[in-house]
């Protein structure tokens, strides 16, 4: 019975793993002089500074937090 319940999760994990491998295997080496688009300020792989308060209220008003490079504790948010 447990195995039946686990099956969809395993399938989802397999899809994620296969997708990740497919994406990473399609990488091409990009030289420094070819990175003008990647170096654009909007292309950074993190939240913007202006999202600081947004991230705080979301972590207070929602049960989930983390995995976004920000804080994972500290501050009450009790109101």
């Amino acid at each position, binding site marked *: 019975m447990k195995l039946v319940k686990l099956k969809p999760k395993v399938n989802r994990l397999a899809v994620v793993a296969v997708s*990740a491998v497919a994406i990473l295997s399609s*990488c091409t080496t*990009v030289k420094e002089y070819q990175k003008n688009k990647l170096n654009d300020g909007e292309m950074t792989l993190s939240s913007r500074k*202006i999202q600081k308060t947004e991230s705080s209220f979301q972590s207070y*008003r929602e049960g*989930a937090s983390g*995995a976004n490079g920000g804080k994972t*504790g500290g*501050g009450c948010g009790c109101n």
Partner: protein
Amino acid sequence: MKKICLGVVGIVLTFFSAYAQTPQKDSSTYKSRKLTFDEANLVSSYYKQEGNNAAVTGGIGSQKLSDISNTIDVKFIKWDRKDRKHSFDLEVGLDHYTSASSDQVDLKANSSASHADTRIFPSVSWLIENEKNGTTIGAGLSSSTEFDYQSIGANINFSKKTNNRNGEFTAKAQAFIDKVSLIYPTELRSGGGGDDDDDDDYATTARNSYSGSLSYSQIINQRLQIMFIADLISQKGLLSLPFYRVYFNDNSVQKENLPDTRMKIPLGFRANYFIGDKVILRSFYRYYHDDWGLTAHTVEVEAPVKVTPFFSITPFYRYYKQTAVDYFAPYKTHISSNQYYTSNFDLSAFNSNFYGAGIRLTPPKGVFGIQQLNMLELRYGHYTRTNGLNSDIVSMNLKFK
């Protein structure tokens, strides 16, 4: 509060006017051994929310709240003899909020001392980047102080780029040692819950959070880069809040009671893609699960459109969905024989939508012709939760270089 805001802006402008005559800093051919100013950011936000499920009053009552937040961070850099780049970041934040629900710690009060508070949160960080071997190490300290809550944080991190400089692995560890003041609802106090006549006499208890984070970013091609993030967060101590009430189905009332440990596992994925020459697609997905039974999914998409090379508009949308923790039940539905209980709707099952737009100005001669004012960004967002809470936030980021 207006005075505080104007004061912060005044300090920033005074500080940067002092740099107005500073010569241009490092170029690719010269790396300063002296500590030089790199950039500073002032981020100000105004947030307001409305709702009718306040945890202080057991899941009913106004959640009206407003918050003004100002944060300034200043970054300095220097290169050492081994050609390693040192970055020092100093940050100070100040929040001031008014909250209708906090006012109800004392149910008879119309405007008690707890209806408003100010939080101050300074932090420092130091990064050492070795461009030759592609490694970065760093450490930081932070603190956060408000009337009923103190937090001290420390973190260390390490990054290593791949040989072709197209990938980067990062490991980070953080610890937050917090103290919660034991302020109980007035009707549940029996001598140990504090004394309104002496604000400093509240007993405190510990709440500690430890987290480890691993991430890997990879350039896929000249337009696409992605990142995988995995965190493991462990919390110990008083994880409930002493002034949150729970009303049971037999009409009795108690303060919220939750387990004293919580393990959280958030897994994140980011992908940013440059479409054509003017549009960027930024995306984020997070899966979250913890041992209180809460599972959540977050999807975020934003699309900066470069109207000109110096002006962009960014619409954004965020969808969030969570299940309730095992210990949640609304007002007067808990059974008093339960070991753990909460009526905090932040831990209930709901979906939320957050959408809005931002603009970004980066004129080559500076914003409003002020050379040091390198960037102005404005952003507005509206947030709605399926259990009735809604909020608005407007933020501004001024960047000085």
